[in-house]
C-alpha cells in the first residue's frame, strides 16, 4: 500500500531528512518507525502526508506516485490519511466536538452524519462526555485522545502518528497504543513513529529503524 523506492528528501541547505529509503508497507499493517531524534522518523511520515515532497525516488501509495502530485490534489490525498502529532495540533478556541468534526466539515458531510460520527469517534477514545469542553481544559493524555478521535473520524485507510506518546507517562502510553492496535484491527494501515523502545518491543510488530536518514 505504501511503497518507498530509493526515496530521498534533501532540504534546502543540503541536509538530508531521509536518504535512499526503500521499503514496503502492506495494506492493513501496523509498523513502528524508531530512531534517535533527527534520524528522519518525522520526515518519513511527512513525506507520506505530502507535508514535504521527496526530492528523489518514487513514493507510491496504492500504486500511484505521489511525489509529483499537483498542488491542488494534495487536499484529496490528505483526506485519505489520519494524522496524529505529539503536540496534538488542536484548535483551542473550539470545543472538542468541533475539533473532531473538522475533517468531516472539510469533506462536506451533512450535519446529522457529522454528529453521529463525531460521537462514535469520541466514544472510541473514551471522551464522549467531554464533547462540549475546550481542549485546553483537558489533560495531556485526553488531548492526545481528542487528536486521535479527529484522525479516525473520517475512517481513513491510513493512520500516521508522530510520537503520539511522547509526553505521556507509561500507563497512558499503553492506553494510547491499545487504541492504535484496536483501529489496526479494523484494517487501518498504521505507521507510528516513536522512540519508546520498551513499549515497542512488547508489541511484537514490524519495526523500521532509521539512523541518520537511512534504514539500518
Amino acid at each position, binding site marked *: 500500500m505504501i511503497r518507498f523506492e530509493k526515496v530521498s528528501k534533501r532540504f534546502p541547505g543540503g541536509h538530508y531528512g531521509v536518504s535512499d529509503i526503500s521499503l514496503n508497507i502492506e495494506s492493513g499493517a501496523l509498523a513502528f518507525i524508531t530512531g534517535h531524534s533527527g534520524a528522519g522518523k518525522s520526515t518519513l511520515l511527512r513525506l507520506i502526508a505530502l507535508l514535504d515532497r521527496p526530492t528523489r525516488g518514487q513514493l507510491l501509495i496504492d500504486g500511484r506516485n505521489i511525489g509529483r502530485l499537483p498542488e491542488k490534489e494534495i*487536499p484529496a490525498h490528505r483526506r485519505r490519511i489520519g494524522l496524529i502529532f505529539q503536540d496534538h495540533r488542536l484548535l483551542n478556541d473550539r470545543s472538542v466536538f468541533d475539533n473532531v468534526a473538522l*475533517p468531516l*466539515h*472539510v469533506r462536506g458531510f*451533512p450535519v446529522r452524519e457529522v454528529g453521529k460520527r463525531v460521537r462514535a469517534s469520541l466514544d472510541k477514545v473514551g471522551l464522549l462526555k467531554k464533547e462540549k469542553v475546550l481542549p485546553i481544559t483537558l489533560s495531556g493524555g485526553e488531548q492526545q485522545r481528542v487528536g486521535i478521535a*479527529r484522525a479516525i473520524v473520517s475512517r481513513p485507510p491510513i493512520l500516521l502518528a508522530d510520537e503520539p506518546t511522547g509526553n505521556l507517562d507509561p500507563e497512558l502510553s499503553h492506553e494510547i497504543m491499545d487504541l492504535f492496535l484496536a483501529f489496526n484491527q479494523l484494517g487501518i494501515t498504521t505507521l507510528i513513529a516513536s522512540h519508546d523502545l520498551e513499549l515497542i518491543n512488547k508489541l511484537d510488530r514490524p519495526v523500521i529503524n532509521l539512523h541518520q536518514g537511512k534504514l539500518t
Partner: protein
Amino acid sequence: MRITLTARLSAWFDQHRRSVNRSYLEMRRHPLATLMTLLVIGITLALPASLLSLLKITQTMTGDHQQSASISLFLKSGIVNEKALRVATDLEQRLQIDHVELLTSADAMEEFRGRSGFGDALDALDENPLPNVLLIHLLPDSSSIEIRKLAAELKEESITDSIEYDQGWIERLQAITRAIRRVVQALGFGLGLAVMLIIGNTIRLEIMNRRQEIEVTRLVGGSDGFIRRPFLYIGLGYGLLGALIAWLLVSILLMLLSGPLGRLAELYDTAISLSAFSLHALLLLIPIGISFGLAGAWLAVSRHLSSINPE
C-alpha cells in the same frame, strides 16, 4: 440519484451556513474594531454617493428648466391685441415652437402686483408701463443653438421691441455639472479602490490571526476553496454592511439638505424630489459594496493563504 443530489445540496448549504456563521462570529469577536472598519468603509462609500445624488438633484433642476425653455418677446407699444394674437398664431407654425401665449400688459400688471408687493406704488402710476408680451414656449428637445437662432430671427420682426431668454445660466450650470460629474466619477473610482484595500487589509489581519486554524485545516485535507470561503464571506459582510452605513449617511445628509434645497428649488420654480432612504439608492449601493468587499477579500486571500502551510 435524487436522494444523493438533495443530500449533496443540503451538505453544500450546511457548509456555507457554517462559513457564514464563523465569519459572523469572527466579526463579532472584536466588535469595536469591526465597527470602526465598517464606519471607515461606510464614510468612504458615502462620499461619492452623496456627491452623485447632489449632482442628480441639480440635473433634475436644470432638466426641468430646459423642458420649459421659453423666449419672452416684448412687443412694441401701440400694437393692439388683435395684431399680437395674429402674430402668435403665425409663430406657432414654426418648427421649434410648441405654443405661444399672449401676456397683455394688464395681465402682466396683475401678476406683478401679486408677486412683488409693490401694489400701492403701482396704484400711483397713471398708466400701465408694462408692455404686451408674447411668451413663446419652445419644444423640449430644441437645442441651445436652435434657440439662439430663433431668438435672433424674432428680434428682426417688425413688432419686436426686445427679446429675452435666459438659457445662458442653464447651459453654464450644465457644463459645470458635467465637469463635476467627471470629478466625482474619478473620485468614486479612487475611493472604491480604497474600500477594496481597507477590506483587503482587514482580511489579511484576519488570516494572520487564524494561521493555526488554517494550518490544521490543511492537515485534515481542507481544500483551498474550503479555507478561502469564510474569509470571502467576511469581505462580503464588510462590503454589505459598509454599503448600508453609506446609505444611511447619504440619507441623513439629504434629509438635512431638504430644507435649504427645497427653498432653492422654489426660487428656480422647479420641484426637486430629495429621495432620502430611497430603495433605489440602496439597491445600487449594496451590489457595489459587495463587489468591492469580495474583490478586497479575494486579493488578500490569494496573496496570503498560499503562504500558510502546516509545519
